[in-house]
């Protein structure tokens, strides 16, 4: 058992996607001028979201939208909304972050990372572990509530946007492109079902999806290394949080998922979602909603520390624990 977990962890390290992330990180660290054109990176991330949503919808159609989805969706919503309160309390207790920056950071950790999810799903696929299509919908549901939580936490204090500039905020929060594309593609998959999947399977899955993930992770590696280098020294507390919170959050998620009776694959994915932190939708919302929060804190934490940690250590670890729990 332990053997097979360690084997999977080792195989994960040698998966092309992880190696391309490492390549990017190395190149970024060495200050190579390698860069992925920004529109290409944006398009890749849209493509990944479209694929994840569509495949999820088509698979949910195939296996029927069960009570499971409702239960897991509700759990995900609760996690995304409540986690920021806990994260905020911890961040403030550790000291070093002002109220607004702590609230904004907490929002990142309540929300989720699409690419961490994708890497986790590929890990499961490579390990031959099944998971439900509707986990893509859970992913989409968990994007946004954390932002609302952070707004509540920050209140109308110093850091929040004043009334006049709030009008556009709700649209940004509720209709941000990532959430719309994920949920929308899920419904497209649901509606077009097996016939749609037959037409698109070579586009949304297989080598093309894998390859796009590699290219995107190459870019993420570059970005993470550059972000880390540009960062004015982060306090040790922030670093500790970025590495310890995923463990705590995944542990809580695994227990909750176990209590709900989720399958092994779904348990793992839910833990991955809980452990992951946003670096696209939430930063955009925070620039608008909490402009006084320090992006020099939350971006390096989520992008340059938590993201690689989950990718390399977290995914196989959470799965290993899920295997033990699921017995």
């Amino acid at each position, binding site marked *: 058992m332990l053997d097979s977990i360690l084997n999977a962890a080792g195989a994960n390290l040698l998966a092309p996607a992880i190696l391309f992330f490492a390549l990017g990180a190395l190149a970024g660290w060495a200050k190579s001028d390698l*860069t*992925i054109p*920004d529109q290409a*990176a*944006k398009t890749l*991330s849209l493509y990944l979201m479209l694929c994840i949503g569509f495949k999820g919808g088509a698979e949910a159609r195939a296996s029927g939208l069960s009570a499971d989805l409702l239960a897991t969706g509700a759990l995900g919503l609760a996690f995304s909304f409540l986690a920021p309160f806990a994260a905020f309390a911890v961040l403030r207790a550790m000291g070093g972050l002002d109220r607004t920056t702590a609230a904004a950071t907490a929002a990142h950790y309540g929300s989720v990372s699409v690419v961490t999810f994708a890497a986790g799903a590929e890990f499961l696929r490579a390990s031959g572990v099944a998971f439900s299509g509707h986990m893509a919908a859970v992913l989409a549901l968990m994007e946004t509530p954390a932002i609302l939580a952070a707004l509540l936490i920050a209140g109308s204090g110093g850091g929040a*946007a*004043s009334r*006049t*500039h709030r009008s*556009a905020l709700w649209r*940004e929060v509720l209709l941000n492109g990532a959430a719309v594309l994920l949920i929308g593609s899920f419904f497209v998959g649901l509606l077009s079902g097996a016939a749609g999947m037959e037409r698109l399977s070579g586009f949304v899955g297989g080598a093309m999806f894998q390859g796009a993930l590699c290219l995107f992770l190459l*870019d*993420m590696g*570059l*970005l993470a290394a*550059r972000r880390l280098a*540009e960062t004015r020294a982060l306090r040790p507390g922030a670093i500790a949080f970025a590495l310890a919170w995923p463990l705590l959050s995944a542990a809580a998620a695994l227990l909750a998922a176990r209590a709900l009776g989720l399958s092994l694959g779904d348990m793992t994915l839910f833990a991955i979602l809980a452990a992951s932190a946003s*670096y*696209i939708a939430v*930063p*955009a919302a925070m*620039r*608008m909603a909490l*402009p*006084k929060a320090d*992006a*020099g804190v939350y*971006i390096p934490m989520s992008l340059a520390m938590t993201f690689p940690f989950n990718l390399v250590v977290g995914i196989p670890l959470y799965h290993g624990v899920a295997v033990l729990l699921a017995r």
Partner: protein
Amino acid sequence: MDLVARKKLDIFIEGHALARLEAELGRAGFKGWSVFAGIEGAGAHGAWRQTGIAEGDARLVIAIGAAEAADAVLAWLEAYFREYPGVVAVSDVGVMRGDRF
């Protein structure tokens, strides 16, 4: 060539505020403006660079118009910049067909 004196605003602003700024320009009396995308920069709020996914969405808005219109927008920007990153520079330019500004 008879040129008419107008004010030119170079406004550096984040993408999320663009729609609101444009509405404000219209209200203030500007009859036109142009928007450009920056690729990197630095300021009081730190440095940024447009790489990879959508982190940097800095915009340069160039708006040419009458002095009064410029004043109105500057007043709006003053309040805006109290909360958000950004910078504006005002300069004197000459334009043809002054009635179009």
